[in-house]
């Protein structure tokens, strides 16, 4: 009797670990397999696969900075507005200072906006959620006022090619995303900064006592969000051929946060997974594209997206429950 229950518990734990390691990959494969089966010849093609990964770079790159931020136990919901403000500033200046200049301006502006968020959170001691909620309104309003609510079209060849051209058969955004994730991985795993981020997220007080400058780490994390939002803004504006002050990045903050949480990063901070965020970004786009290709009514698409999200997050909870049984 004892042995049986012991074996049962171990298999439970095994199941939990299995879900933890492969849950997201399995969901991704199931979605991909399902739509490949439902709409043969359209979904399971190299071109489609390539395009889906290209589109996922927009959410995927944004999710990098957010993963760091949520790992420190903070939160940034201003990223959608930040994307729009940086995008319209860069795009409006591009005709005067060339496409390269516009791209650089976009990234630097986003970087700076992220830095401001960080300073507000740490030096003025306003909770991150409220600071960025306020900034969500402020950034968007400045984008509107600056452009007088007119879209800024991008004519420049260089900028347009970033989102739309291919290199060695792969779209350029995929390379950009790969490089971003590579750098972020090194930063998190191979540099002291990564350890500091986890320390701050696990126990901010203990981190302070062990000599880590918590404020600087937080400012750095918010600035990193700005950096990746800036890169995402360049790609997004390039794909659409314009930066629109109202529509650009509207609701994007929730897609990004969803990807990060779906990827297994705990909202309470201290632990997180960059690979999980990437997989989650792919899941969101694979599902969306699959439903559009299968000509699912767009309203059903919304319902299904919400249900899949709840299901995937519940799976994550199931993992903890299964592992927790044996502890």
């Amino acid at each position: 009797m004892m042995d049986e229950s012991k074996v049962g518990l171990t298999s439970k734990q095994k199941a939990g670990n299995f879900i933890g390691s492969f849950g997201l990959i399995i969901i991704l494969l199931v979605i991909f397999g399902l739509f490949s089966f439902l709409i043969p010849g359209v979904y399971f093609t190299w071109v489609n696969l390539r395009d889906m990964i290209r589109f996922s770079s927009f959410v995927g790159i944004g999710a990098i900075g957010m993963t760091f931020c949520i790992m420190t136990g903070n939160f940034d919901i201003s990223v959608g507005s930040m994307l729009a403000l940086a995008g319209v500033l860069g795009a409006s200046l591009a005709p005067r200072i060339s496409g390269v200049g516009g791209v650089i301006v976009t990234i630097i502006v986003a970087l700076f906006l992220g830095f401001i968020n960080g300073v507000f959170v740490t030096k003025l001691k306003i909770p991150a959620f409220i600071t960025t909620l306020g900034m969500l309104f402020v950034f968007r309003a400045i984008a509107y006022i600056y452009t007088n609510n007119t879209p800024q079209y991008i004519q420049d060849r260089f900028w347009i090619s970033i989102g739309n051209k291919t290199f060695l058969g792969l779209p350029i955004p995929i390379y950009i995303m790969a490089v971003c994730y590579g750098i972020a991985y090194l930063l998190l795993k191979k540099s002291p900064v990564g350890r500091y981020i986890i320390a701050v997220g696990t126990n901010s007080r203990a981190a302070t006592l062990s000599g880590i400058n918590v404020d600087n780490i937080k400012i750095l994390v918010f600035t990193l969000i700005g950096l990746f939002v800036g890169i995402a803004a360049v790609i997004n504006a390039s794909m659409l051929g314009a930066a629109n002050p109202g529509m650009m990045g509207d609701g994007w903050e929730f897609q990004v946060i969803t990807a990060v949480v779906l990827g297994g990063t705990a909202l309470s901070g201290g632990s997180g997974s960059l690979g999980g965020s990437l997989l989650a970004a792919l899941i969101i786009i694979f599902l969306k594209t699959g439903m559009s290709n299968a000509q699912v009514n767009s309203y059903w698409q919304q319902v299904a997206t919400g249900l899949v999200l709840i299901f995937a997050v519940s799976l994550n909870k199931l993992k903890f429950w299964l592992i927790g049984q044996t502890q």
Partner: protein
Amino acid sequence: MVKFLKLYEKIGIFILIVAASIFLTIVSPNFRNMDTILGIIMQGSYGAIIAVGMTLALTSGGFDLSVEAVMGLTSVILAMLIPQMGFTLSIIIAILASCFVGMINGVLITKVGISPLIMTLAMQVILRGTSLLITGGRQVVIAQKSFMTIGASKVFNIIPTPIIYMVVIFIVFYLLLNQTTFGRHIAAVGSNEQAARMSGLNVTIIKTLVYVLVAFTASIVGVIRTSQTLIGIPTMAPGFTLNVLTIAILGGTSLAGGKGNLIGTFFAGIFISMIYYGLNLLNVQIFYQFLSVGLVLLFALFVNGLRIRYLESAKVKGIRI
């Protein structure tokens, strides 16, 4: 100083309102008119009603992003049912359906342990989709003009009905939060869930009820808005959730849970409406409304942060608080 700061915690938002009133009285002759003032309060009532529910959710340590979609769902159910069932029954069904949505939120958050952020966000997307499916993506006109009396008439020919609803809901929720055991339990769960569980509170039921109440307030506003426009709108009030959160936070309710300030919420709703009115007077574009709301939020929380730090340092110095 300490006394003043303690007082400020309670009535800080009230000081802002007085300042805004003085400013508006100087710049706008119309503001001295009773109708204008009641109009401003009415515009503020929509956000304030839901923010009252949101304050409960924040007090319990959670929050609800699905409120705007609940409004849309209510609106759609009303538009579909009123031709067949009449007003009373339709309203009851719409509100019950919303409460049911709140219950699902609560059960999944407490039983499965999904974070409120993700759960209510997913619920928002699901409800928007469902509402659009029900009407086939269209807006549905309600033919029965008399339905307008609910949200667009005036009591004694003076006071718009939404203000009455706001006051009634505020009083009920105020008593609920501050005078009942249930209210104390909400605060207990919000300040330390583990401790609340240990001391025998049924955290699941308390939290689930909170989400039902949030959905209830959202549904009430859905009824009012639908009655005013006589149209069932599946995509009603996009982005309204953030306004509601802003009102609750501006009113002094902490995101950390355990501390809800309903009086603050009530006045913050009116204050935001005053800002909008003032900006309309200046004839500026709608973007400036976003800007001012964002700046006011940051400023108010900055002042609040200063206050807390002053009180903490006073405590260290041994001044009695």
